[in-house]
């Protein structure tokens, strides 16, 4: 093992997870492939969503993969950064909306 939890080369080995559990792994990758096909949303829109979610879940492999994929699909830098702002807004909103709970609790226990 290297002295790091993350190695960029491991991204290409993602498919290897099927080696230890073929049935579930294959089902996952079939599903994964189906999700990203052109549908009601374009493949480029899905890639931008994936890019935003990658940041929200702090996945460096996913950020690597979907930065490349978004560029390949013709997204520009502005669109990519806007996608991340959407993730950031939801993350920060999710923190701040709990402020209401804090306010409710504070109201409840104070005179």
């Amino acid at each position, binding site marked *: 093992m290297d002295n790091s939890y993350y190695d960029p080369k491991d991204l290409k080995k993602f498919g290897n997870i099927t080696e230890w559990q073929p049935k579930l792994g294959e089902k996952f990758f079939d599903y994964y492939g189906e999700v990203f096909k052109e549908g009601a949303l*374009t*493949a*480029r829109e899905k890639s931008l969503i994936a890019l935003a979610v990658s940041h929200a879940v702090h996945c460096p492999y996913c950020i690597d993969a979907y930065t*490349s994929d978004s*560029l*390949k*699909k*013709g997204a*520009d*830098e502005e669109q990519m950064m806007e996608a991340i702002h959407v993730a950031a807004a939801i993350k920060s909103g999710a923190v701040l909306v709990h402020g209401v709970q804090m306010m409710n609790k504070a109201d409840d226990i104070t005179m």
Partner: protein
Amino acid sequence: MKSEVNTVNNNISSLAQAKPLASPAVQIDFLNSDDLIKFETKLESSALYPLVSSDIDIFQVNLGKMCNQVCKHCHVDAGPDRKEIMTKETMQLCLDALDSCNISTVDLTGGAPEMNPNFRWFIEELSQRGKHIIVRCNLTIILANNKYHDLPDFFAKHKVEVVSSLPHFSAKRTDSQRGKGVFEKSIEALQMLNAIGYGKADSELRLNLVYNPSGAFLPDDQKGLENEFKRRLKNNFDIDFNELFAITNLPISRFLEYLVDTEKYEDYMQELIDAYNPEAAKGVMCRNTISIGWDGFLYDCDFNQMLDLKVNTASQHIRDFNAEDLHSREIIVNQHCFGCTAGSGSSCGGTTT
């Protein structure tokens, strides 16, 4: 991280900078200096080796390496300092060759082909012969000098199909590949072409754009990119065009330098190899194209031309042109050919599958 190497001396060719990879022989050596699977082996695995040509449909003429731009990915290593220009005598030999056969499409490229002093004469001669003429116009040439401002009208008069590079609908991405200010001038030139009917749905004047990735990655689905380009160019600049051709960057000349300088060469080659598609290999453009260099020598394609890999026939010059001799010739292949067989395939007309 971006390499400093690519940010210096970007107004002259690699040849003028005496860069080693400006030499075709050095490029060929470099492309064969690793342990990667050979293109011939891949072709053999698809029962396509040796790759053999069919009838010639496209007569592609490189009118010279002079260009008003110095693009970072240019496979020609073109630029203002390049003086290799096709003479009128060689153009006449091209016309004689065309008169001896029934090839209907003539594709003119460069450099900026419009900078050849006999460009208009050549177009007029081709037009008189009823040829379908394609000009690979870099757009900015139209605005580069007063003498080029009427090019859109000249193109329209001869019903020239205009094929123009626009790597992206964002200024940042286009300028990073083609030079500062290129995007703005390209947009203005596209609007000039649109104004006289080019690229409009009800017009016979065809305007096609060429997309190539602005980095070390393969182009994605051509139709998806075309839809996005159409939407963004229409919304942002009221520009219309007919088709988008997605072209893969081949690992030669300046793009090869970029790959080497940024240490992306091996990964990029492996990506091309992994994406090898036998269907794309069947449809490679060299099978129905003949490429003529500025000095009249014949090649299987413009990329082979830049690598100085001449056709594998007894006569290799336009003065000895014989369409029959060129039929069923063995195409000269090398490692750069992986660029045309990756994914959906790549040609001067976009994907091939």
